[in-house]
């Protein structure tokens, strides 16, 4: 059964930025975008690169290694060299804390 895990606080992530979070050895990336908070698997689907070091542009995350782009709301791969979608996770904010459903 999916469970909600506390990842960080809203203040931990600047606007249009990304925060890396690890739970049970799995890496996640949490995004603060103009359209709200979103979360995804923390590693790019193209090569092993940490999305927490990438660039957030509106609701898009750009991988720091090869600049492939994903829509963080849906995980959809938007531009080469990525072509496999990113797994996303539901997010909720409660009293300034950000929770992921994993």
């Amino acid at each position, binding site marked *: 059964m999916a469970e909600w895990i506390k990842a960080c606080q809203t203040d931990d992530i600047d606007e249009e*930025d990304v925060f890396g979070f690890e739970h049970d*050895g*799995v890496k996640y990336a949490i995004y603060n975008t103009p359209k709200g908070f979103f979360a995804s698997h923390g*590693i790019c689907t*193209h090569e*092993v690169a940490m999305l927490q070091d990438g660039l957030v542009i509106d609701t898009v995350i750009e991988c720091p290694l*090869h*600049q492939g782009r994903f829509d963080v709301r849906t995980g959809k791969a938007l531009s080469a060299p990525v072509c*496999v979608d990113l797994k996303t996770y539901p997010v909720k904010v409660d009293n300034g804390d950000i929770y992921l459903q994993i």
Partner: protein
Amino acid sequence: MSDTGINAEPWVPPNLEGTKVEKKKMKSLMRRADGVPLLRFLLCVTSITFYGWLYYLSWGTFWVIPTLILFGGTMSLFSYSASHECAHGTAFKSRWLNESVFWFSSILFGQEPIYRRYSHACHHTYTWFWEKDAQMPFTVRQKVDLFTYFRWYSSLEYHYLFVKIVVLHALGRFSDRTRSFTPQPELPKMQRNSIIFMLIWLGAIGVSLYFQTWALVWFYVLPKVVGDMINMSFVATQHFEMAEDDLNLTHTTRSIKHHWFWDLYYWNMSYHIEHHFAPTVPFHKLPELNAEIKDKLPDPKGVMPITIDVYKAMRNRHLSVEKDALEMPTSH
């Protein structure tokens, strides 16, 4: 393609050990723009057109040689560099502008865009790792004869390879190497683009034959052959004769001395270690990145001293008898 799943072991791409840039600063360096790169693009295109005009005016005089070098050198350097920056997707903020210039510059450069993008992505993942880096032509661990170096420095080798790759890909024949760094769904697009490239080349030849004109030879082929030698002198400074299979970028990669004229067409790739350290930083922000980390970098040399160093290293290796005597350089 490596495993990127839940339990993926992270491959740490080559980096600068212990070098960090404050996160907010790095984010500001990574931000894209349209105005500055568009100005650079237009400045390059108009000035290169002007050099082409000078070259045309100088036919029949001694000045045809320097103007040919100027026209060809700047055209080759610009097409290589713009295509490279657009392959990263960092040239322009607007994606359509980035992809449009990517196609334009790749046609001028002569390399199909999708292959260029994926082979270069592989180069960044495995910078100068033998048999992993898709853009590493030879290894210092093997004796390579001087003729091989000549073929690379004259650019004849990569002209041959680019044409061969486009023809094979147009026929749907992809090597295991290409398949290793290109996702399967991209291969049909690579084939489609290769067919487009062949049609462009054959069309240009057909039009030249129909109109009985040598314009293509005088204004593209000849300047490109001459210019690519200059371009290769710059490209060779990036990694030739550096350490291999080493994760420290200062061992595998060189930056060169900044020169305002050549860097205009080289799109600041003189800051090459900086570019590998943070490929998400657009070319016009590399001087700022350099200011942040320059105390961690070796002093850059000019193109000529590096070319001489590379030549000496390859000559010594060519002449050496004992394979064990070959040492991988770890400094500039």
